[in-house]
């Protein structure tokens, strides 16, 4: 690779971000060299400064950030000293960007093809007609269905995986020398992720475009990058070519990243026959309007057991949770709690019934009232259900903060905005615990978190389960998580339970075809994994179902 011409050189890059009117350094002297046609993977946890560096490669800093030091040289142009107009001239034309969420990054008001042709037309690369024809061609290359027609749709009419491919096509519109991919598949289901990854890899190779591929997922970056740079808190940990990095990392931090998936829950003894499950979902059919989202769902959850409900978006996992909590009364069937039928609507449940079933949400950001301090967030259920007040309440809150491993004195008067993502999720847990429930629904609680952090949360949940005899229903799309935490697994697809049983059975063949597809789509830390998988599927394996799995 190094025999090729150097395209991008970054030296001693320093970027500051503003917090409370003070400037803090968030990127602390990073160097980076990228040759033409080369793909660099940037990995690190949130807060490592990956995206910020990626954007800085375009001479761009987000609002509230500023590039405070170092040089950025793109093909002989000093991006720091260049005029804004000159930088604008490069963006979209010679350096393009593919954002994490295509759904949010496409302008909802314009058709895809108009957004495609905007950059080439505005930068004077092509006429509008040429750009439109080009779009169709690239859509085809990106393996989008109906390439002639799909551009004339609005973003909301196109599925997430397709949008992400359309965005990659859009980035390619001016045939840039460099593309920044900022976590392009993070928001996608595993089965969709594969298509997008392969499409991106093909097109980058085809046009010999250099790329910076930003992600927190090691297995993904292993498929995409020629070389990998590991970042931690705005500083480089190490850089090496992909295979070297995977096989022989030199730094402890890197090694710890590589070793993440170590948590495994010990096998639980089988449930004695005749034990009354804590929660029992019996023949539930439910939906919105006339549409049935759930069809005849049945499963039990016992004390001290974790049931993982797995499926891709739209499979009905969260709807099941809504039925159990009483937010969505089922059309048919019922929910039993310790053998007692619960009123279908939460408004008809007693305070104690409400207390017994708690929920932890996926997005801690929206699940915690941003205007309440932890004292109130955590204390409220205790106050409400257990009648604690004054000193007793304060004591309880401190106790709960201890349980979730946050220093009470330091945190009790903080607002959610003053916490990190993992800490917020811990608060969600503490809030659920405060009610002293028997049963907790965990809705994708780790999917928005970095792996190390997620690991910590899972451990904590395990510990708490043992301590308080809790029953968990664990909703997730991530099979790795299932492996590490579940006792039993329920696989759902399009509102139906496809397969269910103890974890040990589920991860052993033979599988239901859908379960098979899910399992095989989980990226592995092998640079050749994607190639092999695609080959297998081309040969007529489980890949036949891939297209149907898109949302």
């Amino acid at each position, binding site marked *: 690779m190094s025999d090729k011409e150097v395209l991008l050189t970054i030296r001693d890059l320093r970027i500051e971000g503003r917090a409370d009117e003070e400037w803090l350094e968030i990127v602390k002297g990073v160097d980076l060299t990228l040759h033409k046609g080369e793909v660099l993977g940037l990995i690190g946890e949130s807060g490592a400064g990956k995206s910020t560096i990626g*954007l800085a490669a*375009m001479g*761009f800093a*987000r*609002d509230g950030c500023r590039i405070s030091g170092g040089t950025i040289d793109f093909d002989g142009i000093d991006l720091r000293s260049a005029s804004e107009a000159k*930088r*604008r*001239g*490069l*963006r*979209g*034309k010679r350096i*393009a*960007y593919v*954002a994490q*969420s295509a759904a*949010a*990054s*496409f*302008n*909802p*008001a*314009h058709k895809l093809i108009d957004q495609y042709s*905007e*950059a080439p037309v*505005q*930068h004077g690369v092509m006429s509008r007609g040429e750009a439109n024809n080009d779009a169709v061609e690239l859509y085809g290359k990106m393996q989008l269905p109906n390439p002639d027609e799909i551009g004339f*749709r*609005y973003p*909301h*009419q196109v599925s997430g995986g397709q949008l992400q491919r359309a965005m990659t096509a859009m980035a390619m519109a001016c045939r840039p020398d460099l593309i920044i991919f900022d976590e392009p598949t993070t928001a996608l289901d595993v089965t969709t992720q594969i298509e997008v990854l392969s499409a991106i890899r093909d097109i980058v190779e085809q046009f010999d475009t250099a790329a910076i591929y930003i992600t927190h997922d090691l297995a993904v970056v292993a498929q995409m990058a020629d070389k990998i740079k590991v970042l931690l808190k705005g500083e480089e940990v190490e850089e090496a070519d992909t295979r070297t990095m995977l096989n022989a990392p030199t730094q402890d931090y890197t090694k710890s990243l590589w070793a993440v998936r170590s948590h495994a829950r010990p096998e639980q003894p089988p449930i004695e026959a005749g034990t009354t499950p804590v929660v029992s979902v019996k023949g539930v059919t439910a939906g919105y309007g006339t549409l049935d989202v759930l069809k005849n769902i049945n499963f039990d959850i016992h004390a001290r057991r974790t049931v993982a409900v797995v499926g891709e978006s739209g499979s009905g996992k969260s709807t099941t949770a809504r039925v159990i909590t009483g937010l969505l009364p089922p059309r048919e069937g019922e929910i039993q709690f310790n053998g007692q039928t619960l009123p279908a609507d939460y408004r008809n449940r007693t305070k104690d019934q409400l207390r017994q079933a708690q929920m932890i949400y996926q997005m801690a950001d929206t699940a915690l009232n941003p205007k309440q301090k932890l004292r109130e967030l955590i204390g409220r259920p205790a106050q409400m259900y257990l009648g604690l007040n004054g000193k007793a309440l304060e004591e309880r809150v401190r106790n709960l903060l201890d349980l979730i491993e946050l220093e009470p004195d330091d945190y009790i008067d903080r607002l959610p905005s003053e916490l990190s993502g993992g800490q917020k999720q811990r608060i969600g847990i503490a809030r659920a615990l405060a009610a002293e429930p028997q049963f907790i629904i965990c809705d994708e609680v780790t999917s928005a978190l970095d792996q190390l952090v997620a690991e910590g949360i899972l451990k904590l949940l395990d510990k708490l389960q043992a301590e308080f005899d809790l029953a968990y229903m664990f909703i997730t799309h991530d099979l790795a998580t299932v492996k590490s935490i579940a006792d039993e697994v329920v696989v759902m697809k399009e509102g139906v339970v496809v397969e269910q049983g103890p974890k040990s059975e589920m991860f052993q063949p033979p599988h239901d075809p859908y379960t098979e597809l899910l399992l095989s789509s989980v990226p592995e830390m092998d640079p050749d994994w994607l190639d092999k998988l695609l080959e297998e599927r081309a040969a007529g394996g489980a890949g036949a179902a891939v297209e149907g799995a898109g949302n």
Partner: protein
Amino acid sequence: MSHILTMIAQRLALGLVTLFVVSLIIFLGTELLPGDFAQEILGQSATPETVAALREQLGLNDPMHIRYLGWLTDIVQGDFGESLANGQSVAGLIGGRLVRTLQLASYAAAIAVPLSLVLGILAALFRNSFFDRFANASALSSISFPEFFVAYILIFLLAGANGAFPSTAINISRGDPNFTEYLHVAFLPALTLTLVVTAHMMRMTRAAIINLLSSPYIEMARLKGMSPMRIIVKHALPNALAPIINVVALNLAYLITGVVVVEVVFVYPGLGQLMVDSVAARDMPVVQGVALIFAGAYVLLNLTADVLATLSNPRLVHRR
């Protein structure tokens, strides 16, 4: 598109109900006012005998519900009735004034809407700059002056002996001016109204746009190398249209229904004065007629706003 037509039909039906309730409220409200038509029209010269005779003659002695039902029966057949005061048909009384009210509202809107959009867009583009704050402060100042006072200041500055514009719109009631004459004569009233409504629309435009600037698709547009102006106009504005359209509709409704003070100051014969006079005289058929027109204008403008806001949102036009 059929769901939009359904929405329009539903909203029109709802609008009819609104009109009905408005007419009921106005009727009851006017009934509750102290004094009735006979007393008010005779004023200080009322004697018990003449008041009684007038009531008898106009049927004001009938119970309230009979009179309301009578009016309702007529209105359903499209008959607005006649003024109690001078027997002129309400439709005739309203007709000419409605046209003039609409003319003035359109004139003011033709200045105010583009002006506030442009100012709002510029303020969003140069946000927190001197221009932004100055435009904001000026707009706020202009709406903190009462309308009649704004009118007087404009008259003082732009009309009078050597001013460029007439101080009153008397010439409009003197005869039908042609288009350019109209623009000249009605300039000051239109400008006054413009100053009154611009601030609200401008601030909303600015806020609606700025609200979107942290969206990922705006960042995307910036990363595609688009100019700030293009980002605001092509990327932010289309998505900010719904709240802007809404506030524009509210202000247009105000231009039609709320301009009695400007009418008075500029001697502009519009509906507002008719409404105030009729309320003062308890001339129920006219009050009801004008109230219906006002409520109707409000309902229609709101409906139009909602339809436009829907049309501006591809998610609502092109369902999956």
